[in-house]
Every structure is written in C-alpha cells, then in structure tokens.
C-alpha cells in the first residue's frame, strides 16, 4: 500500500470533528477521487498525507513514513515523494513558470544542466514549453494550474495529490487538467484528487471515496453514492 489511513480522527480544539474513524488504503499506481461537499474533510485528508496535519487519534502511513513516528527532519523527504496541486495554484508570483518548477528541484538539492533539462521536459509534457519564461500573473488559470502540476511532478513523486485542481477553471480547461492528471497516473504515479466535480470523476471511471461530515460514506464505486 502507498497510503493507509487507520481509524483516523481529527478534532480541532473547540470545533466538531473534521475526520471521524477514517480508514482506507490506496495501492501503488491507483487513481482515486475523494469526493464530497465543501467541509466534508477532503482537504484535511490530503493534509494528513503530506503530514502538514497529524491525527488526533489513529494513524496515517505513507510509504515508509508513519504519522506516529515521523521526525521533523524526515518531513522534507516525505514531501519530496509527494506532489501537491491546489485550487489556488500557489505559484510564486515573482518567479517565471520555469523558476517555479525549478524551485522544487532546487529545494531537493538538484541543480545544473540536469535540473534545467528536467524542468524543460516537464514543462513540455504539460504543454507550456513556449510559456516557460512568463510569470504566473501573465498566464491563464489553466496555464497556471499546468505550471503547478509541472512543479508537483518535477521530482517524479510516487504520489500526486490534487486539491480541487479545477475549482477556478472553466469546464473545458477543467477537462484538460483531469486528462493531464490521468496521463500522469498512467505513467505510474499514484494519484489522489479531491473534488466536488463529480462529472469528471464519473467520466474517468476511477475509484471514488465519498466523504460527508468527516466520515467515509462510500468507497470503491465509480459512481457517486447518495445516502
């Protein structure tokens, strides 16, 4: 298993539980949709995978790292094995598309010709070769998300997480982004996409985990469950 949640509870002080008794596993190379309404706990699950959050009870296991035993100095190495894409892209506005992607490689201690080659290749694979020297504020929403995806996969991570990756995009562009994520998955990257956009999830026919109020209410079907 690449990702395993075991009876995970997450309770923020003074608020109701964000996650309740969440258990699931994701196999290597799987493409999984995490679906549910806003506030269902999709983002919280993703944050537990790259360990920005830790369970109040239960355990999360990602590769060889376990939430109960991971040390602070191991977090960067866990995160280098996970690419993350957000709805708001989170690109650095002062850097070009090239430098935004290069940042992930530089942070992992890579540089020189090999690094530049890899950045160019990954920008090519998301269809942005000709826009590589443009800053994010001069790129369209779809292009910005492509840069964010390029940054997320530049280190060839084992897992790709996407949190509402099409939330700010028009339907056509959203479709292209989902196709791009599916391509990345086909190349072997385990992919977990949190979305409330059921149509694309249905179209791709992948496993769906449905969340409501922090609880898993359905897991496994390719159709969104209604309860």
């Amino acid at each position: 298993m690449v990702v395993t949640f075991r009876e995970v509870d997450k309770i923020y002080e003074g608020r109701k539980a964000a996650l309740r008794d969440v258990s699931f596993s994701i196999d290597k190379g799987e493409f999984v949709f995490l679906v549910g309404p806003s506030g269902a706990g999709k983002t919280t699950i993703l944050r537990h995978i790259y360990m920005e959050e830790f369970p109040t009870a239960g355990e999360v296991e990602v590769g060889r790292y376990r939430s109960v035993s991971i040390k602070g100095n191991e977090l960067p190495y866990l995160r280098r094995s996970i690419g993350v894409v957000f709805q708001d892209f989170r690109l650095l506005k002062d850097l070009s598309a090239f430098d935004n992607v290069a940042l992930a490689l530089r942070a992992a201690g890579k540089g020189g010709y090999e690094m530049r080659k890899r950045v160019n290749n990954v920008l090519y694979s998301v269809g942005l070769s000709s826009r590589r020297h443009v800053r994010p504020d001069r790129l369209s929403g779809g292009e910005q998300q492509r840069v964010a995806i390029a940054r997320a996969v530049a280190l060839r991570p084992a897992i790709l997480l996407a949190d509402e990756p099409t939330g700010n995009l028009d339907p056509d562009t959203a479709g292209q982004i989902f196709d791009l994520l599916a391509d990345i998955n086909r190349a072997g990257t385990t992919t977990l996409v949190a979305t409330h956009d059921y149509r694309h999830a249905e179209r791709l026919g992948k496993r769906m985990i449905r969340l409501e109020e922090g609880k898993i209410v359905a897991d496994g079907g390719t159709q969104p469950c209604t309860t």
Partner: protein
Amino acid sequence: MSVACVIIMTFSLLILGIFLFATANLRELLRYAHEKVEVVAFLKDGIEQAASDSLESAIQSVPVVETVRYVSPDEALRRLKTEFGSKGYLLDAIEGNPLPASFEVTLKSRFRFKDVVENLSAQISQMPGVEDVSYGAGWIARLERLVRALAFADFGVGLVVAIAAVVTVSYTVRLTLFARREVIKVLKLVGATDFFIMAPFLLEGAIHGVVAVVLALGVIFIGYKVVALRVPQVAFMSPGMIAVFAVFGIAVAVLGSAVSLRAFITEKERS
C-alpha cells in the same frame, strides 16, 4: 529586514564600540603610566659625595630596581625652568638653588605595581642620607581600578547590546517571515529542508550585521579622528578588537534571525 533594524543595531553596536574604544585607550594610558612608575629619593642637604655614592649603590642593589639616576640641584632647577616655560623668569627672583639633589629610581617592568613601589619607597626612606621619598603609585592604583571597572562595564554593555540586538532582529525577521509566509509554505510543500528555507534569511541577517558593524566602526573612527585633533596620543581600536567587535555584531544579527526562524518554521508542525 528593514532599514530601521540596521539603524537600531548600529546604535547598539555604537554604544558598545565607544566603551571598547575608551577601555582600549585607558589600557594604553595604564601601560604608559606603568612605564613611568618611578621612585624619587631626595637627598639631605650637604651630603658628602662618598655618602651619595654608597647610597646609589645601596639602592641599585635592591633586586626590583632597574636604574638609578642622579639628578643634581642644578639639573632639577633647569627642569623646573623648562616646566615653567615662558614664566621661567619668575624663578630668577629666587636667590641660590633651594632644590635638593635626588635619585630617580626606575623599577624592572614586572615590578611596576603599587605594593612593590610602596615597599621600595619605605626601604629607601630608611637609608642614610635620604631626606624624603616620593612616588606616583597612588594614581596608578586608581587608574587600574578604573580600567577594571570599565572592563566589567564592557561586558555588561556587550550583554545588553547582544540581548537588544537579538530581540530587535528577531522581531524584524518575524515580520519579514510573516510577509513571506506563502513562499515558505510552498518551499515546505515541495520538500525544502529547514536549512534551505532559513539560509537566505540567515544570510540577510549576516549582511545587515556587517552593514551595522561597518556603520558603527565608521562613526567611531570619525569620533576618534575628532578627538585625535586635540589629543594626538589617542589610539583607535586594535585590529584584534575590531575583529571581535565585527564577529560579535554579525553573530548577534544571525542569532536574532535564527531565533525567529526556528520559532516560525517549526511551529504548528504537529497539531
């Protein structure tokens, strides 16, 4: 980090620098004063040459004594006239020479301390043919106390400056970090180590430390030049002292950055 932070650091370092500068000069003055430590033995009037010679030998035989120099009444009067300068004619009104002959006794350098000088003076004053003995160790002891007190003050001021600089820098860095929290978030997300994230901030802290050190030293140097116009003997801080001062300034700037970074980067790691 802001210009304000550099200015505050410069002022803090300036205060420390002024103390160090003053201490260095007082130490130099003390060293010079130690060189000048001597005991003057005034001889009784009408002392025989033979008695004078044997007294000189007796003084010279004391182990702590380096040199013994005879000053005749005539030479003493000439010196006095020189010291009077343009008013030397006043001494012409005095008939004859009322000044006594004397021996100027210097001590070996390692014995130029108050207690040794007092013992030697007491010993010489007991010798036959000696009318009176004078020495200037009293003010040297006071100077020694002053330098010791100033060294303590240096330490105290250094400590206060270090705390003030670390607090100032850490608060300013915290503001910068807050302004750049999105960048830091992204860096953490892509797997940057704490050092990778901290390094540019630490470097920035070091650069601001260097700027503050250079500015503070510049102001002290200008002050030194102004003082030197009136007191040419005044000395600037030694290269060693400048090096310690610079390392201190840069270290507190880097430490201030590190304190903030540590708190900012490691917080909320586990909630």
